[in-house]
């Protein structure tokens, strides 16, 4: 019997390390022969800490295993052999509470996530790891490899969706005696965590993908540009690199062949814009992360002026699978122009938040409603924001849109790196646009006038709209600025910064108008536009009166309280305090 604890950052955040320690102690104390092992994230971040108990061919996943549940788990299941049904989330024996979560997924990128121990190369090897690299090096035909990747139809998963094989080909054909492969692990979109999870749960897959890419383009050096905010990923990558070097999968002679390939880690200092290729290169070179105009593309003039291929984590993690299973297996999944699968980080008002990997071509409805179990608290599905701050919102009416690059683009959103934030009727779309713009505005490198000042001005307009200071003509000014910023910025950050504003204006213009004309927030979220009152449900507990900083609430004990609107500063404290839902926001 093996007891497997999910120790991705999501698990750790939920207390999985304590669970792990308690399990180890308990098993040791009971002098049981069972192994307690670590793994990464299986994707069900909403039920962490997850503990899997494997016994031969059977497997049971328990969700929400906090330290206090360890005793019973060991006693009943490990020692007693009785499955604790009420805690089971997944089971090999049959349907369980969350079976639906995995049922419709097709896991290529996440194939090993949550099943192997990311810190032990043996486990990766045991599931066929580095076979693809061995095959490629042995075949020694870089051109055939590039063609295979082109044939697979794999497109860059970082967001723009450029055909990966073509990118390899350009770099391969570029003149230069020294070339680089760079893994872009600077995942910066708020709400996106696919790359982190892959790096934490299956680092060797990325290393293998890089080595294969390096072989294809003729590079002997690779860099992984990873955010410093991902300490666990960095730690596990460093371990993986050391192990791979030790086993000869990286180093002077990869798999014994005359192919030298080394990988270095470069920690990014948390600038969102460094996810942009040219800024990323500047950052590795030790300069300020500022994008430059392309062309020349990195494929011809990249890191240190040499041909450089930059691929995203998810893209690279696909590579070994494609090599092992053949391009046809990959391209059989998906739609006409979008092949394979895509991983989404589900966040927001959805019931099951976590990582899902689905074949291209499934609809947003399937992801949100079927896989993720719909909206929390029985609220109404309103929209998804796809692609983070660079993306756009897709309203619920368009939830049958299928996941492929072109279909998503048609809505005004972008596929992006895979962040999918689900919103319900309590989300104010103006505020949502403001939130994302605030992010891009802060993260602009400051170079291009439109991005630096234009986004700031847009933010100011959005802020004043949400604060009830919107003016006649603000919508038109926003539209004008949005178009200017989009058209007159050097890099993707600026070119896409307007997307959240433009798509919300497209689908939810009425909400903007309500804010400006009626001074009302239809989602009851913009505090400055709310009127607070206390309903009959008030039982006079006086809690609201005690937290009110402006003394606006009065009322006798056990009597319905009242709010003096002239004093109310819309701080929302009473609303948050009331345990009887008696405070009403209108």
């Amino acid at each position: 019997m093996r007891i497997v604890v999910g120790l991705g950052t999501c698990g750790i955040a939920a207390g999985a390390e304590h669970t792990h320690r308690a399990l180890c102690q308990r098993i040791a104390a009971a002098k049981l022969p069972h192994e307690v092992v670590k793994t990464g994230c299986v994707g069900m971040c909403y039920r962490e800490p997850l503990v899997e108990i494997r016994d031969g061919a059977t497997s049971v996943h328990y969700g929400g295993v906090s330290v206090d549940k360890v005793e019973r788990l060991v006693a009943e299941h490990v020692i007693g052999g009785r499955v604790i049904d009420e805690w089971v989330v997944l089971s090999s024996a049959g349907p369980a509470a969350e079976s639906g979560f995995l049922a419709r997924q097709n896991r290529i990128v996440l194939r090993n996530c949550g099943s192997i121990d990311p810190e032990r190369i043996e486990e990766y090897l045991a599931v066929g790891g580095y076979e693809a690299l061995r095959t490629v090096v042995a075949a020694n035909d870089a051109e055939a490899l590039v063609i295979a990747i082109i044939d697979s139809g794999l497109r860059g998963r970082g967001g723009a969706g450029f055909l990966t094989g073509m990118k390899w080909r350009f770099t391969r054909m570029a003149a230069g005696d020294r070339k680089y492969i760079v893994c872009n692990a600077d995942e910066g979109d708020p709400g996106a965590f696919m790359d982190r999870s892959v790096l934490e749960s299956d680092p060797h897959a990325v290393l293998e993908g890089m080595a294969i890419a390096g072989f294809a383009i003729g590079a002997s050096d690779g860099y992984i540009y990873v955010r410093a905010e991902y300490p666990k990923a960095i730690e596990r990558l460093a371990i993986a690199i050391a192990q791979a070097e030790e086993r000869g999968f990286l180093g002077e002679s990869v798999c014994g062949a005359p192919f030298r390939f080394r990988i270095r880690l470069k920690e990014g200092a948390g600038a969102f814009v460094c996810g942009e290729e040219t800024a990323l290169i500047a950052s590795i070179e030790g300069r300020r992360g500022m994008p430059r105009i392309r062309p020349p593309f990195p494929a011809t003039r990249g890191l240190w002026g040499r041909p450089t291929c930059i691929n995203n984590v998810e893209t690279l993690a696909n590579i070994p699978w494609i090599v092992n299973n053949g391009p046809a297996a990959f391209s059989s999944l998906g739609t006409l122009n979008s092949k394979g699968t895509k991983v989404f980080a589900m966040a927001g008002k959805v019931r099951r938040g976590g990582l899902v990997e689905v074949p291209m071509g499934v609809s947003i409805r399937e992801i949100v409603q079927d896989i993720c179990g719909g909206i929390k608290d029985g609220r109404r599905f309103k929209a998804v924001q796809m692609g983070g701050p660079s993306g756009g919102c897709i309203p619920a009416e368009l939830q049958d849109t299928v996941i492929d690059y072109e279909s998503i683009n048609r809505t005004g959103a972008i596929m992006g790196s895979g962040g999918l934030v689900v919103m319900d009727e309590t989300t104010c779309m103006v505020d949502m646009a403001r939130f994302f713009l605030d992010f891009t505005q802060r993260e602009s490198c400051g170079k291009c006038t439109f991005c630096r000042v234009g986004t700031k001005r847009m933010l100011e307009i959005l802020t004043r709209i949400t604060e009830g200071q919107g003016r006649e003509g603000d919508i038109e000014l926003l539209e004008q600025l949005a178009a200017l910023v989009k058209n007159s910025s050097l890099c993707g950050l600026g070119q896409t910064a307007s997307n959240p504003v433009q798509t919300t204006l497209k689908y939810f213009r009425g909400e903007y108008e309500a804010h400006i004309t009626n001074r009302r927030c239809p989602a009851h979220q913009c505090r400055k536009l709310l009127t607070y009152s206390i309903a009959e449900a008030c039982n006079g507990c006086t809690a609201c009166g005690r937290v009110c900083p402006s003394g606006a609430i009065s009322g006798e004990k056990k009597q319905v309280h009242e709010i003096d609107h002239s004093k109310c500063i819309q701080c929302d404290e009473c609303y948050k305090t009331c345990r009887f839902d008696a405070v009403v926001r209108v």
Partner: protein
Amino acid sequence: MDLVKLEIDGQKVIADGRRTILEVAREREVGTIPTLCHDGQLEPFSSCFVCVVKVRGARTLLPACSTRIAAGMVVETNSPEVRRARKASLELMLSNHYADCIGPCQLHCPAGIDIQGYIALSALGKYADAVRLIKDRNPLPAVCGRVCTRPCEVRGCRRNLVDEAVGIDYIKRYLADLELGKKEPFRPATAPANGKRVAVVGGGPAGLSCAYYLALRGYACEIFESMPEAGGMLRYGIPEYRLPKDVLDLEISQILDLGVKLRTNVALGEDVTVLGLRESGFDAVFLGLGAWDSTKLRVQDEDTPGVLAGIDFLRDYGLQRAARLAGRIVVVGGGNTAIDCARTALRLGASDVRLLYRRTRNEMPANDPEIVEAEHEGVQMEFLVAPVRVLKHDGQLAGLECLRMELGEPDASGRRSPRPIRASEFMVECDVIIAAVGQGTRAPDLLSGRVPAFLPPGEDLSLTRWQTIQVNDRTFETSVDGVFAGGDVVTGAATAIEAIAAGRKAAHSIDAFIRTGKAKPEPVEFNSRKDAFRTVTADDLRDGARRPRRSMPVLPVEERVRSFAEVEQGYSLADLRQEAARCLECGCLALYECDLRRYATEYGADIKPFLGEATQHRIDRRHPLIELDPNKCILCGACVRICSELVGVAAYGFVNRGFNTVVRPSMGGTLLETDCVSCGLCVSVCPTGAIVERIPLAKSGPWPTTSTPTICHYCGVGCRLHCDTYGDTLVKMSRREDAHVASGLHCRRGRFGYGYVHDRARLVDGRIRAGRELQPASVEESIAFAALRIKELKRTYSGAEMAVFVSPRLTNEELYLAQKFARVVLKTHQVTTFSRMVNTNWDCPEVVSTATYTDVLDAQGLLVVNADLANDHFVVDLLAKKAIRNGARLIHVGPTSSRTSQFAEVFLQCEDGAQPLAVLALWLEWARLAKQPLGDHPELERAVAGRTAAELAVQADLRPEDVADAAAILARSLVKTVIFNKDHRGMRVPGDERLFARVAAALSAPILALREKSNMQGLLDVGASPDWLPGYAAIDDAAAVDVCEKEWCASLADVAGHGADISSLLRRKQIKVALVLGEDPLGNPDTPRDLVEGILAADFLVVGDLFLTDTARAAHAVLPLSAHPETSGTLTSQERRIQRLERAIPPRNGLETWQVICQLADQMGFRFKMKYASIAEVTEEIQRVIPLHRGVEVDSPDAAGLWALDGRGAPAGVFDPGSLSSPARPASTLALDHLESVFARRFDEDVERARAALSAAEKPA
């Protein structure tokens, strides 16, 4: 090269496909592409997005600065879409540009006079220039200096936040009065007559101003004035004690002097009509009729005799019609006219003058100083009183019945309106009532139909509802074609300055109307205003120290009330200076260079559309030369990039992200704490005023300067610069951009080293020795004295006992004339420079550059020996670094590490003096790698003397493998250039330059032989040597002698001193007559003592210099020379490039140096042989005499500007291998001419002082 065809704005262009749209468009002069972030010396950056263009087929607009051209591209550079995007970009930048373009004083001046500019000129004592600047906008400064209501001071001056406004108007009056007092006051240049005629109806301020500015443009103007004299309200509305009529007369006469005709006693509607004027051939008519109608009191019995209208009263007085006035006078009103009436009445003899005003003193529209003076003089003021009824007694005026008032709510104008208090009637007894409650125009009378055929048939002159003439407020066009109007007749009674402004603006519009048929408003420049962002407070100001305003001296009250003598007496010079110093200089120093403002104007950008939060930073004035104002930064990064990419210092960096991004000195401190070398390139590339030079003048303008091309006179690089001048004032040096590879580059000496021109210690006249003392003398006297004495001594001494010493910083023309003076006048070949004499051992004149800067830039391998490029030849350092960025590899040979060695791929740090050994080792190793035979270079073989490369390396204290590495680099570089400094002052081997030149030849590399001084090459070329004639012709070369003799009309047969060793003559004290031009051997501590004594032993020593140097102090006659910006001529750079400098300002000594030399010859009797009408004649003569100069295109940035080598030059010297073992240190020659040592000392002192101030400020209090 990959040529592609494309189309820009409909024009077909073929160009190199690697270039960008911007480069191609600029080079071919097609299209209009502005840019703020691009600089020719830098890689494209594309941050400002002002350069966007439309490329057909592209999804978005593209930045032209970084978009490469492509075949078949169709580019639009100026379509409405493109212009809109540019405007938006500018407006976004301006929405975060917390800065003032011009001071608020100028903004508030209706005429927009450059107040900061004229105050700054006043502070420099440039009074005439100041008047010129004022008259650009206002032809009546003396008048306005007296009567202006001063919105500039009252509302504009920020000094009000500290203490009181600067006395702007009083300064103006001082300047204007000074000018009026001159025999020949400033008369502006007028355009040639254009044959067009304009009728100006009304000779008041509007009409006079209109006529003045039209006359400047070449129009024939005729003023039709209804009164006996011109001046309008200025004459007939403003009393004498405020504006003496002679002042008015003088300023009017200056306008009439421009050819403006004045016809008086001609009234519109009576003597002429608009129709009549048009029929008599006037191309346009300007109506400046004023507002001469008095508003009635609107009270009962107003028409009683003794009730006068204020304006009529003043006019009658002005016409000398007003009788003496006796008794009690009541004046009703609170404006300037009311005050004028009251004070005039007092002066006419009234016993008692009361002024009644219906609001309080605070609401009085009259100028405060006027009210105060009226009170002093005894005018009694009663406030909150309104007239109700004129009281009569027997039909005679007896008094005025009044009501008391109280103030109610503020009305539309913001003033609290008065309300009568019930039953508060009271009576004021009086003999005369003067009603000064307002004025209207008489325009309705003219249009009433009373005047037949007043307007052209079918046309109608529209009036406003206030019965003033309606005009287009920007073009001043009335509803009648070709008829314009301005001043009070349009605005109703207003101020003189508004009328003057209207007249000028109308003149612009009329000019456009006559030339193009369409009136066009005077262009309005964009102005950024701090006040648009937030209210400026005292904390924002440059200087918060309270220094009260100088008060205007006034006539004592007892003296003035009985006369019409002018009350205000005017500032003294001391007042003016103090007051000028109080100016806070609110306007931007980069006003006239700012690209942001230029484009904002061009694209009609405004601050407002995107106004929001703006970042605000403190201005950093801690560096002595450079001022940083991050508020004005547009984040183009040009400073960051030029400093890191080109200079390699990285003194600036971007800090923060998003909207808060800002450029700051690296590590956030001051520039002084960075590695800043103060080259000033950041100032040069900054497109706005974010980085400006701190001009070393009492006040630094800004002024609209003129740029004159010049050549830097410090080192031999020959940087091309501009002298920026206003009038006769050198304001600064700036970059000059052209096609030369070093275009726009300079070091700190070139950019900041011009302060000596303004130095008070400059010699502006001569000196003559009288006994032990040097006595001041005029330039002419000192020349005459020197000539007389030399002439006398010529009888005693031969040419062999005379010598001329010249500075290698003089121009080719000056040097040529000096040698000609020596040979023709003094009959001696003994002409040389101390710069060569102090280091005779190291002097190899035949070693000249065979390389140009292009060779440095194009090289794959650079060998730098004996040169600290960054310190001595900064621009060559920049070029070398640029070459390195392009892939060149640099080897540096020298004993000490420097910035150059830091950038070197191999630094061969040898023992001091062993550089020749290192170079020889390098050559040997290279020859081995490149498989080159050694035998072709016997001279080098002799120097090697059988040693191996390794042995030589060890001898030079080098590791042989380093030498091998360096040699490998050379062997792998196809294109190489060798650089060394001929004037290197470390340990050296005599004749080492010859060795370096030979090694370079063996490597097939051209050499760049660097020079310490700007024209050492030219000095040798033009023959300032006893060893050769101009152009290195041997002195016995018959053909050359023949050319010289013919050209100079003199025989050279009897010229002594051929090939003389002048230093030994000096040592033996055999030089009896010496002329030293621009050198200071006595002031240079490195000049050998015996040479100094040799000079002092001369019977007669003449010194020409800019300063009274140590040598000049020892002279018998001292002649003042002209400074560089005061001089015209040519200089020959170390590249062999002959470059022109033009005189930018007149010499302070009155003569250019070349003229001093010629006059000296003239005084010695050579009246024709050295007589030239202009410097061009000298240049032409040089070209005739010196074959080297023939066919050289002076100032050409490419190969045509170099004198050709092809075998010419001085005979080659031979390297003596024996000298290898005896290195020594040459003497420094920098202090030989005053400038460099002065600049270096000043610079060091300034930086030291700034650092001290910084550390003092940082110490905790």
